[in-house]
C-alpha cells in the first residue's frame, strides 16, 4: 500500500520527466522507465534532481544521498530516483 507521501513523490518525479519529454517520441514514462531510455544529457538529469531537492525542501541532502550511493546515473530507473527522494524526505523528517 502506497503512502500519500510516496504517491506524491512518485507523481512529482514522473510528471517532471514527462514534461521534459513532452515533444519527443518517447512512450509514456512509468516507474520502471530507465533514465538512459529517455536520452537526456546527464546535466539535465542532475537539474531534475536539483528541482526535486528544492521542491521537497531538502537543501543539499538529495545530492549527498545520491553521491553516497554511487552508480551510473543513466542506469537508474524513475523508481530509483523516486525511492531516493522518498528516503531522503523520510530521513529529513518529512
Amino acid at each position, binding site marked *: 500500500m502506497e503512502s500519500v507521501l510516496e504517491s506524491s513523490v512518485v507523481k512529482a518525479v514522473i510528471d517532471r520527466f514527462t*514534461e*521534459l*519529454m*513532452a*515533444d*519527443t*517520441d*518517447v512512450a509514456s514514462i512509468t516507474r520502471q522507465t530507465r533514465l538512459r531510455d*529517455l*536520452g*537526456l*544529457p*546527464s*546535466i*539535465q538529469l*542532475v*537539474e531534475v534532481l*536539483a528541482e526535486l531537492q528544492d521542491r521537497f525542501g531538502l537543501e*543539499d541532502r538529495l*545530492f549527498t544521498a*545520491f*553521491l*553516497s550511493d*554511487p*552508480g*551510473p*546515473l*543513466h*542506469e537508474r530507473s524513475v523508481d530509483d530516483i523516486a525511492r531516493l527522494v522518498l528516503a531522503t524526505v523520510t530521513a529529513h523528517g518529512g
Partner: protein
Amino acid sequence: MAANLAAAPTATTSALVGAWGRVLRGVFGVLVLVLAREAFSAAGLRGMYVLTDAFAKGMSTALVLGAVVFGALAPVSLRAIGFSVISACAYPLLLGRWSVAVPLYAVVLCALARARVRLRFQIALALLAWSVLPVCRWVLPRGSFVASFGIFPAWAGLAYSSVYLLVERSRLARKPTLAEEIFYLLALPRVLHPFFQPISPAYLRRQERPDLPFRVVLGGVGLGLSAMALRALRAWLFHLRPSLPAPLAIVTGVASTYCIFAQTIFTSVSLFRLMGFDIASGFRRPFLACSFAGFFGRWNGYVREAVMSLFYMPLYMRLRRRLSPKVAAAAAAYVAILLGSFLLNQLLVPVSTSSSVLGALRAKTAPLLLLEMVVYWSAIVLPGTLFATKSPAGGARWFQTLRFLAVYLALQSAKWVLYHGGVTKR
C-alpha cells in the same frame, strides 16, 4: 534430525555442482577467447592482449584461467584477497621489476585513505606518490626501463582510479575493506590490458557476481570477440586510409578512433566479466547519440560517470547557491570536463605513457587542439545549460540522431581541412 542428516549431503552435492558449474562456465569463456586470439594471430592480426610474445601470451592465459578457476571455487569472502595475490604475482612476471611499484603504490594509497587527513590532502599526496614513477622515467637514463616498459600504461590508469577510490571512500557509509581496495587497484585486467577509463570502485563491488551466471560469461566473450574484431578493423582501416579520397578518409578516421578506444576498454571489461564482474562495456553505440552530450556519455561511459560524480555534482551543489541554475550548471560542467576528462584522462594518460614527456605535453596542449576541445565541450555543455529549452529533446529520436551525425561529420570535416589542408600538420 534425520531430515537434517539427509539434507547435509544434498547441500554439499549442490554446492559442489554449483562450484564446478562456475569453473566450467569460466573456463569455457577463456578458452573461446584464447582460440579466437590464436585464430586472429594465424590470420596475421593481433589478438586480444597487448602482450604478444609467447611467454607473455602463455603467462597471461594461465593467469586469467587461474583467476577464473579461483574465483569460481573460492568462498566469496576470499575472492578479493585471492585476486589481489594473483595480480601481485602477475605484475613482476609480465611487466618486469619496476612493476613492483604498483603493489607498493596500492599499499601506500590504502594507508593514505585510512589516514586522518582531509580529502584534498589525501588526493594531493596520492597524486604526488603516483608521480614518482613518471619522474623517475624522466630523470633516469633511457635504458633503465627497457624490461619494464609495459608498466607505464598500467600506471597511467592508476592516477584517476586513486582519486576515485579516495573520493568514494569519503562518501560511503560502509567503508570498503582493505582487500577490496587492493583488488580494485591491482585488478588483473590492469596488467593484461591496461585501461584508462576510470571504473567506480563502488560500482565494481556492486556488480560482482560470484555465481558467474552464463549471461555474464557470454557477455564477456562477446565483448572480447568484439575487441578483437575492432583491432582487426582498425588495422585494415590504417592500411586503407592513405589511398582514400577526403570524405572517405574523414569517415574512416572517425571509425579508426572508435576502434582504438572501444577495443581497449572492451578487452578489459571482457576480462572483468569472466572473473564475475557484470560491468557495463564503457562504449554504448556512440553514433546513435542524439546530441554531443549523449555522444560524450556513450563514447566513454566511465569517464562521463566519473566527471559527473567526482566533479560536476559537488561543484554544481556549491555554485547553485551563488549563481543562477543555468550559469551554475554551465560553469560546473566546463570545470568538471576540464578536470575529469581533459586533465586526468586526455592529458595525463599520453603524458605518462609517452617516452617523451615534454613532446606529449606539447602535442596535447597545442593551441589548435585546445580550440577543438573548447568547441567540443561547448557543444556538450551549452545546449543543456545556458541554451536549454523547456523541452530539450524535440523531434523523433532518429531525426535527432541524423541531425547530430550531420553536425558531427561537418565538424570532423572542418578539423580534417585544418589539419590536412595546409594550416598545420599533427
